[in-house]
């Protein structure tokens, strides 16, 4: 079972790396959002320093959402989803390893890139790295919640717009705790809540997404 899960993980990672740079694109999108906001808000450095962590979190959220429709859809299009559904390995665990692969390609690069952008946003010393750390803890929950939305809309033609609509309300608590974790006064409480969101996501999301994938196929 572990072997087949590792095979799914390796396959998804290989496809992501060799399949036309989707990894880089979400990162470029993240960069675009973060660069766009100072233009909209104005170049007031003190203001940017104050809202910088929130900008980074919003950018990461949007960059995560934007690639979600490609989580299961390619497998549906080339038919390999049928193979995954018929596999003797529990579908929820396959979903979990696919989500892990997606996070390694999207969430992790975002968390790594965030400190560099944090410096551009004039965050005080130490805060860029810390914001990156909160993203490291928070993006898995974002990806897992997103996996539910991706599975629900897997064979819909209008799925692209629907995924963010379905997923956004569920991500609001994660964003609240993520941004709260970048403030001194509430950091530890918020950090534990972020971890709790990850744990709930690891348990609930694979089950819900697997059920949705099965329901979508009937």
């Amino acid at each position: 079972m572990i072997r087949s899960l590792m095979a799914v993980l390796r396959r998804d990672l290989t496809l992501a790396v060799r399949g036309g740079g989707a990894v880089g694109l979400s990162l470029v999108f993240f960069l675009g959002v973060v660069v766009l906001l100072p233009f909209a808000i104005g170049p007031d450095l003190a203001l940017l320093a104050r809202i910088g962590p929130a900008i980074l979190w919003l950018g990461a959220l949007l960059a995560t959402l934007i690639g979600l429709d490609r989580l299961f859809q390619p497998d549906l299009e080339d038919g390999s989803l049928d193979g995954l559904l018929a596999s003797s390995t529990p579908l929820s665990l396959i979903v979990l390893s696919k989500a892990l692969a997606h996070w390694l390609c999207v969430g992790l690069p975002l968390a790594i890139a965030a400190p560099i952008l944090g410096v551009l946003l004039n965050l005080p010393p130490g805060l860029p790295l810390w914001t990156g750390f909160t993203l490291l803890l928070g993006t898995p929950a974002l990806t897992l919640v997103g996996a539910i939305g991706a599975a629900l809309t897997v064979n819909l033609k209008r799925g692209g717009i629907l995924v963010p609509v379905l997923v956004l309300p569920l991500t609001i608590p994660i964003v609240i705790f993520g941004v709260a974790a970048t403030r001194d006064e509430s950091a530890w409480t918020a950090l534990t809540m972020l971890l709790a969101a990850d744990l709930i996501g690891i348990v609930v999301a694979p089950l819900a997404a697997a059920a949705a994938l099965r329901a979508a196929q009937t």
Partner: protein
Amino acid sequence: MMWLANPTRFSAFADAVLPWACALATVLIAAGLWQGLIVAPPDYQQGETVRIMFIHVPSALLGMGGWTLMSIASLGVLVWRHPLADVAAQAAAPLGAAFTFLALATGSIWGKPTWGTWWVWDGRLTSFLILFIMYLGVMGLRAAIDEPARAARLVAILTLVGFIDIPIIKFSVDWWNTLHQPASILRIGGPSIHPSILVPLIVNMLGLSVLFVTLLLALMRTELMRRRLRGLRLRAAEAA
């Protein structure tokens, strides 16, 4: 529940119950509004604005109750395969959304003179706004799927995932410091509201709940007819 599983029997049941439910809702709401708007004294702090609560509180309760009902119906779809469960879930969504919107709107109107602002981003208000967006999401997902059987199961999964918001709304006033007042009716030690306001509030809650059930039955009956019509059309198309 099992007895009503037959759609024809359900339609007959709804036909028989609807006039009575409609009359009961009218009487209760009329009595509740008369007591609340005319008989009940103005609050010693809030003045006349307290009367908004006679609509706000029942609406909020029914907004959350609607999602709870949809969640139970979703279990009915996924676990028990009850034939009417999805019809109930579909009918409850716009009703719950309407009551959630009503609760948000009346709360906002009440908040302006009382708190001095239309809106604050605190736990209770935000989680309730999330509930409203989730109602729209559920309806959007259903509208995007052509085939009813598939829509039923997918919407049920989304509804159950979204149920996590209901306890968050309920306990948000305890978990976070918030402008919204804590629970004052369902609490240990009994209600903390004076009977002159509590009684019309409860009458209104009953009245609006009966209204919810009435509209739910009517919508379910209509939806059953729509589905039967769809089935007949498909059969006619196949025969042609």
